[in-house]
């Protein structure tokens, strides 16, 4: 063992490594930068719960050496709402994919963001369902080939930054897997936020998306993300364009508003104080 400080080694569940992800997959970057961000923040790892849904990135909750829960497909956010409100001292970090969070789990995203429940949501957006063999999903670009769009996708894709902003998220950012340092800094900001924060990370999937769309080589995928990334001109989500030849990256929302679990518990204290003042134990006629 070397003496070099390696947060990846100490913050992963060693019995679970090696991970299942393919060569060239961006999920390893997310895992690495997430753990480095926590390390640089000196975050209390006993207060953090990693929650994931189903899909390749869904396995991440098994790799982090934290309390962690691998839910059913799409339900990570709803699980996290129950966890956070029942025990507000915990910080849920939901890490999942575009299909999990925005197709099957889309409704839960709307309402967790709308309520501003304190949690960080990291979406690995690879434009496809990788684990099931590369089908089209809610972010698949028009014209892209997938195993269920053999003639090219005709669906209008969802812009996750605009969607998250419209739902009421208090921090919204987008990066690609090549923006390693920016991902780490952005995650630090997102995790520090007392509210619903959302970080989209565009990840390459050479195996299941790249091969079908003429970019099968991992390095070529990284070059693609580098070449099409554009840093934002302003923090306006409306300008957060995302298409195969142009992906605007940056921070698009950073606002403050009352957080849900705080409000729940403020209410509990207020209701109990009113009861005490009135000399009663309940407002209900039993």
């Amino acid at each position, binding site marked *: 063992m070397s003496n070099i400080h390696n947060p990846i080694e100490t913050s992963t569940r060693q019995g679970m490594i090696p991970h299942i992800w393919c060569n060239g997959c961006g999920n390893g970057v997310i895992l690495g930068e997430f753990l480095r961000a926590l390390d640089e923040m000196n975050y209390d790892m006993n207060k953090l719960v990693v929650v994931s849904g189903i899909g390749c990135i869904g396995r991440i909750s098994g790799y982090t050496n934290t309390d962690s*829960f691998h839910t059913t497909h799409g339900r990570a956010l709803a699980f996290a709402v*129950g966890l956070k409100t029942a025990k507000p001292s915990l910080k849920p970090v939901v890490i999942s994919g575009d299909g999990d969070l925005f197709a099957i789990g889309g409704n839960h995203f709307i309402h967790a963001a709308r309520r501003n429940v304190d949690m960080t949501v990291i979406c690995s957006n690879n434009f496809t369902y990788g684990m099931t063999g590369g089908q089209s999903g809610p972010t698949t670009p028009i014209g892209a080939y997938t195993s269920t769009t053999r003639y090219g996708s005709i669906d209008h894709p969802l812009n996750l930054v605009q969607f998250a902003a419209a739902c009421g998220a208090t921090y919204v950012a987008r990066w690609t897997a090549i923006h390693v340092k920016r991902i780490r800094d952005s995650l630090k900001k997102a995790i520090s936020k007392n509210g619903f924060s959302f970080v989209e990370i565009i990840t390459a999937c050479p195996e299941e998306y790249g091969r079908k769309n003429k970019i099968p080589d991992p390095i070529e995928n990284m070059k693609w993300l580098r070449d099409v990334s554009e840093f934002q001109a302003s923090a306006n989500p409306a300008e957060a364009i995302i298409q195969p030849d142009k992906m605007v990256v940056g921070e698009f929302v950073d606002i403050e508003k009352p957080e849900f679990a705080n409000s729940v518990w403020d209410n509990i204290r207020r209701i109990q104080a009113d009861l005490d003042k009135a000399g009663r134990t309940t407002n*209900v006629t039993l």
Partner: protein
Amino acid sequence: MACAEGAIAAGCKFFGGYPITPATEIAEHMSRRLPEVDGVFVQMEDEIASMAAIIGASYAGVKSMTATSGPGFSLMQENIGLAAMTETPCVVVDVMRAGPSTGQPTKTGQQDVMQAKWGSHGDYEIIALAPSSVQEMFDLTIEAFNLAETYRCPTFVMTDEIIGHLMERLTIPAPEEIRIVNRKRPTKPPSEYLPFLGGEDLVPEMATFGEGYRFYATGLTHDETGHPQADSPEHQSKLVMRICDKIRKNAGKIVKVEQTFLDDADTCIIAYGSVARSALSAVVEGRAKGAKLGLLRLITLWPFPEDIVAQVADQVDRIIVPEMNYGQMVREVERSAGRKKVTFIPRLGDALHTPEDILSQALH
């Protein structure tokens, strides 16, 4: 209200739910009462989320519940499977209405009792209780929490619209008179803790998130450490058999029934929920007419009291099963009753069987 007060008496501190007739009153009452006792009420976006949220709250260390009716119960099935697989103590109340689909939302039924057992995919066991009175609604909700905590298993209170909307006397005992059971806590330090190692009773000890145990729970097939074993046939059979056997092998301790006039009966009526009230009237009237009728009231629906039904079947000539459905628990009765004649009385529509409906069959 009796159900909600039972939950609060049992120590419930989290309710996640979605409005649905005829179960909404439970959510409404919980929304007023929980904040008074340091409990959290969250109205979720749907029943899928409600079920996920109560699993999250349970892993945060609190007793949690939801309440719904048929359509919502269908949506919950996905995460009921997750609760069974991750051995999450939690309580689901189903105030049954008439189905299938939207059916008759304000009318009563007992059409979800098989769904309670078989609703999610794969092999697993749950516990389900069926109250027959307002007092039992209170008592069995407490019992449901105690069983959920004892066996780390989703536990259902399967009631129906009639019991749900019944007004009758309820005695709430003093808190010190109520038996409360809490989940087994880890006896080992985090470095030695195995979150899915069954004890002698096959039930694992349960740590809470945020205490430093840093454990992993997954809906994937997993080993005693919680790590996925998605390809191992040994782990698949070991895990699934344990989560089933912790209920099957403890069924003798879980199952409750009520036997009335069965000692010398030649005809046994087997009923549960509101229908058992009509059945009792039928038995009393029949006895007055000299017929040797008896009643076996099922308080526990699942695990099914098969040994007790088999014993009763040996004693009597005939069994009658009235249900507000088109034939559900009667299948379990037939399975347990050997070759004894079983007569089924279905009832679909706006109300439960009258005592005369049951008596005319019994005297037939």
